[in-house]
């Protein structure tokens, strides 16, 4: 109860500070709109159908990109954990690519795929896949040798050892990998949508900027943060809490 109070308190406090800063009247509303104006814009955007359509568009892209990247990333991560040759081939490469912000791929993606969905899908996948793969590989490497030895002395080996011991043992690490991947995918998507206009929440922000409608920009930002929070806490948080409870991790 008090934890919830603290969380709500921090948000309310921030809103109050924000409104106070606006009330000072030092900045015009097209530079710093107040929380009320942003809320109004969000309501207006929702009733007019602009925001829901943008959310659906963005989430659709995300579902495809994130889905592809995480399944590919999990497969590649397991392959790297299992086969030393695959690890040697991709390990350093992916680690190197990690330091490259995903949006740097945008010019190439536009050139290769043109101004279309494929380009943005490419950027989302390339931002997410390596992150997930590396985190899953580390989870596989982190499986205690003791568990493997115990399983082998009980007659497990080969594929069955992997299915019955290694994969379940990497579950907590895989959830962390998916969580990381989610935030990478989300960021890549927003950057992509902001830069190259094709519907979605990024475009709402882009249009808001063109019209000097900062309330609209901030309303979109609010929606993005809320969506991220909901997925991270509700979906992944639920799976993670369940695993932690079962494993007795605290």
């Amino acid at each position, binding site marked *: 109860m008090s934890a919830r109070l603290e969380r709500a308190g921090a948000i309310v406090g921030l809103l109050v500070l924000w409104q106070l800063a606006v009330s000072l009247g030092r900045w015009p509303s097209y530079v710093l709109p107040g929380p009320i104006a942003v809320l109004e814009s969000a309501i207006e955007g929702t009733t007019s159908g602009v925001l829901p359509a943008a959310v659906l568009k963005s989430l659709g892209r995300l579902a495809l990109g994130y889905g592809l990247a995480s399944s590919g990333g999990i497969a590649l991560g397991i392959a790297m954990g299992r086969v030393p040759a695959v690890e040697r081939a991709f390990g350093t490469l992916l680690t190197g690519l990690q330091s490259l912000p995903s949006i740097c791929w945008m010019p190439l993606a536009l050139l290769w795929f043109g101004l279309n969905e494929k380009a943005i899908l490419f950027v989302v996948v390339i931002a997410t896949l390596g992150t997930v793969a590396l985190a899953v590989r580390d989870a596989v490497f982190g499986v205690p040798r*003791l*568990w493997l*030895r*115990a*399983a*082998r*002395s*009980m*007659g*497990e080996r080969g594929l*069955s050892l992997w299915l*019955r*011991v290694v994969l*379940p*043992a990497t*579950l907590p690490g895989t959830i962390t990998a998916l969580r990381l991947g989610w935030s990478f995918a989300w960021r890549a998507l927003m950057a992509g949508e902001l830069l190259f206009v094709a519907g979605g929440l990024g475009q709402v922000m882009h249009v808001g900027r063109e019209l000097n409608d900062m309330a609209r920009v901030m309303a979109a930002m609010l929606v993005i943060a809320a969506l991220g929070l909901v997925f991270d806490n509700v979906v992944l948080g639920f799976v993670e809490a369940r*695993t932690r409870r*079962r*494993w*007795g991790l605290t």
Partner: protein
Amino acid sequence: MDIALKNVEKSFTGRDGKHTALANVTLEIPSGAFVCLLGPSGCGKTTVLNLVAGFETPDQGEVLVDGHRVDGPGPDRVVMFQDPALFPWLSVGENVAFPLQKRKLSPAERGERVDEALRVVHLYKFKHAQPHELSGGMRARAAIARALVMEPRIMLMDEPFAALDAQTRELLQVEIERVWQRTKATVVFVTHDNREAVRLATRVVVMGTRPGCVKLEVDVDQDLPRPRDPLDRNVNLLVTRVQRTLQAEIEKIAREESDERQTPPSRRGRGEPDLGRDI
């Protein structure tokens, strides 16, 4: 099943170079024996166990089980570690059932065997609990149950009770003795507790260090009634004998280590304080 080590040599390469864990170790363990391996740390007793388990291969010599060269781990030789190594994603019952998956058993038979093993170690009530909900002693018992369902003919135990308190350890010693008498399995039990060794073993093997080797093999009088009375005169005599051999080994290590320390570090003591050197 009987176990034989013939002129086994094994060394490991560590940071400070190669070190010989076992040098020319020959050991014969007859079928149905309960052999306790005793010795100071670093004498290679765990290495002996890992060789028999098939986790390691010898550099020289042979490790034979029932006359066949050991080639990797297998379900005929179940291993118990100091950590019970239960899988946290499975319940206690599922953990105990884990090794049965490979056997051709009907679900009913499988369930019966799991229940029976859990009853033997008094954990039936905790069948649906998760491992982390059990105490350390209960987890060790769950590991014993998991070993039991496999009906192994060899049980290899690497200080399985070392992390437990004295009372729990005593209870589990009784438990493991019962299991051994029931299954007539061959047991190799690594410990550093000489009372535990004499209390359980049909034969105590004391190992020495640098390099690891067999120092003393004592057969424990089989007429001593089980469970053995720790106050019995014969038991105590044996404990003392084992203790002396161990003591000599431990003193040898201490002497060697102090010799190494006395070698003066070069260019030291010019009158300047030696502070902060290690930082």
